[in-house]
């Protein structure tokens, strides 16, 4: 059984929490004590119905304000798959928390209210999910019950959405007409929409093909930690631990070490339970090499004729996450794979209006939750790929050295 990590984006108004409640409840994944606690709170607050949003809004402030502020993670399973759900906030002011949840997602659900159609928030979410390279998108057109389950409404919204997504890199976009409130097309097919030929949302979540989403072509192994016991039992053991970020590694393979450019062979691969015949993403393994090279944390193992870029000038899209605005030139720390370096933000090429996708080339500062294309110069080269090629070797975070806060997230162009 594999795991699907998926994110939901939206606010209570879209019926997001109702949808999650439905998924958990109808797939029999909600525990009775949690449901009782939610019913109890709903009753005390005088809600007319059991507010399933409370299942996920776990912080006191969220319950008081009735909004999602930060990502909540939920776990459920069906006989086909295990699911890790990252329920993320929809409001623009919590964009940084939304991207936290979406950065590791295989799939994301965008909710659209059938009575309203595509709104600013749907555009922003869809754009961000595309920027973060979430491979599969599911647009749930919700509240179909309120438009008489009309196919015309669904088709119009689908066309509008498709026009927007064709400008993005997201390859797989699926549309499902639902009513979260009544459960239509959430867990099982609805009898109200015979014109809809696809499966239910859960059916899609269970069956979407994700095994080819990871890069199995370009070998990328960022060295995380050097294991050298120097004990009497294994005096000569020297292994390089890390998580495979791309490609397939096998004992005997010729590999290249960066930044040295020296080549050697993989002598052995040690997994958590002993020697392995091959290692693929996202396995955490230990490589032993045939020759004694000077390898340390932050280095990269790749193939001789398929190496990442060795770059000091970085062109990237950055989501800014700090209340303190960014005004280039600015000095920051940049963490990329297992390497942390100093970086100077030299220039802002443009700031992007995520609602219109319009580029503002006259912008000089970047405020919290805004997105910009930046030019950075790093003190030590990054061993990197375009984000569209590899989500792990194409991403970085920016850290303010003064406050130690994570202030930005970047994807390399």
């Amino acid at each position: 059984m594999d795991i699907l990590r998926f994110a939901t984006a939206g606010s209570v108004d879209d019926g997001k929490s109702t949808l999650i409640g439905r998924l958990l409840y109808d797939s029999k994944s909600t525990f009775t004590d949690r449901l009782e606690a939610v019913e109890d709170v709903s009753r005390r607050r005088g809600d007319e119905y059991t507010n399933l949003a409370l299942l996920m809004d776990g912080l006191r402030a969220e319950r008081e304000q009735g909004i999602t502020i930060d990502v909540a993670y939920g776990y459920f399973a069906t006989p086909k798959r295990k699911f890790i759900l990252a329920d993320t906030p929809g409001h623009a002011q919590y964009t940084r928390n939304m991207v936290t949840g979406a950065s590791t997602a295989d799939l994301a659900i965008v909710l659209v209210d059938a009575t309203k159609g595509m709104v600013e928030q749907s555009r922003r979410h869809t754009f961000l999910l595309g920027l973060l390279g979430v491979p599969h998108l599911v647009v749930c057109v919700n509240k179909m019950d309120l438009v008489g389950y009309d196919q015309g409404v669904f088709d119009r919204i689908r066309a509008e959405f498709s026009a927007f997504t064709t400008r993005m890199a997201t390859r797989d976009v699926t549309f499902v007409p639902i009513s979260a409130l009544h459960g239509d097309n959430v867990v099982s097919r609805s009898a109200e929409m015979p014109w809809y030929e696809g499966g239910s949302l859960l059916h899609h979540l269970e069956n979407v093909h994700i095994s080819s989403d990871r890069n199995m072509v370009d070998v990328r192994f960022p060295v995380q930690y050097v294991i050298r016991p120097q004990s009497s039992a294994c005096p000569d053991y020297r292994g390089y631990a890390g998580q495979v970020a791309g490609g397939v590694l096998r004992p005997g393979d010729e590999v290249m070490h960066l930044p040295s450019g020296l080549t050697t062979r993989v002598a052995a691969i040690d997994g958590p339970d002993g020697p392995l015949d091959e290692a693929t993403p996202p396995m955490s393994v230990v490589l032993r090499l045939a020759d004694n090279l000077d390898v340390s944390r932050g280095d990269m193992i790749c193939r001789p004729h398929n190496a990442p870029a060795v770059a000091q000038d970085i062109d990237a899209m950055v989501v800014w996450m700090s209340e303190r605005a960014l005004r280039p030139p600015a000095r920051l720390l940049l963490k990329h794979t297992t390497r942390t370096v100093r970086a100077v933000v030299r220039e802002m090429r443009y700031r992007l209006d995520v609602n219109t996708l319009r580029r503002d080339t006259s912008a000089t500062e970047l405020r919290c939750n805004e997105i910009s294309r930046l030019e950075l110069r790093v003190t030590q080269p990054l061993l990197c790929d375009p984000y569209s090629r590899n989500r792990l070797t194409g991403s970085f975070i920016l850290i303010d050295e003064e406050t130690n806060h994570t202030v930005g997230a970047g994807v390399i162009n």
Partner: protein
Amino acid sequence: MSLEMLEAESIHIIREVASEFERPALLFSGGKDSIVMLRLAEKAFRPAPMPFALVHVDTGHNFPEVLDYRDKRVAELGVRLIVASVQDSIDAGRVIEPTGRRASRNRLQTTTLLDVIAEHRFDVAFGGARRDEEKARAKERIFSFRDEVGQWDPRNQRPELWNLFNTRIRPGEHIRVFPLSNWTELDVWRYIARDELDVPPIYFAHRRRVFERDGMLLAENPYQSPDPAEVVSEATVRYRTVGDMTCTGAVLSGARTVDDIIQEVATTRITERGATRADDRTSEAAMEDRKREGYF
């Protein structure tokens, strides 16, 4: 395959801590989650020993079977164990022992934990908490920042993207790291089965003298006495979580093997904390409040 993915993620997290921090500690209670976490730490550095000490916060009200297990496991691994004792904190006047019928030392652990972190200048502590346990934990980052007085600020968490963890802190601050964040109770048991891990015997069905309080079965124990109305009787029970004897409830169960437990957990409709923890029942946001103060 899903266990292998979870294992790979956890090992990555554990190695990242060993790479980027100076003085890590691993909080080990002898409970099922910390047993799995310890196993993952063992695997992460093989054939080298794990490069950190274990810390146990001992309330003085622990189950003796769990302490025996803890000592046996520590001896097997040959690692250093630091026991931080709540009794010592009480004796030193750092905390005041609560009194009354529902008195529990559970909350006092926070002070003892923060004191041991400060005393040994640990800059990071691994915890076995999982997000599926409780709604406040479902909101917490894998690398969770604590300020100089050990507090968690849920409104101001560091964004955490991809597998890139911000490990930077100032002296006196620390980070709690939860490698099992994405594991469920069922995953933990399946892993225990797969790796044939030994666990304390109280996880399996046994006969025990218990009394019912607030819908939970508490063990007859030396630290609290049942009210006259609370009848002590013998039942076949097991523990789903391991905590203080005074606030950890047993569940009626006939599960005698790990496979039995997996069957039971796969079909239960009640969360482990809902079934067994009095400490979470004091208010709607009990866990969030304790976590803000620096609790596990």
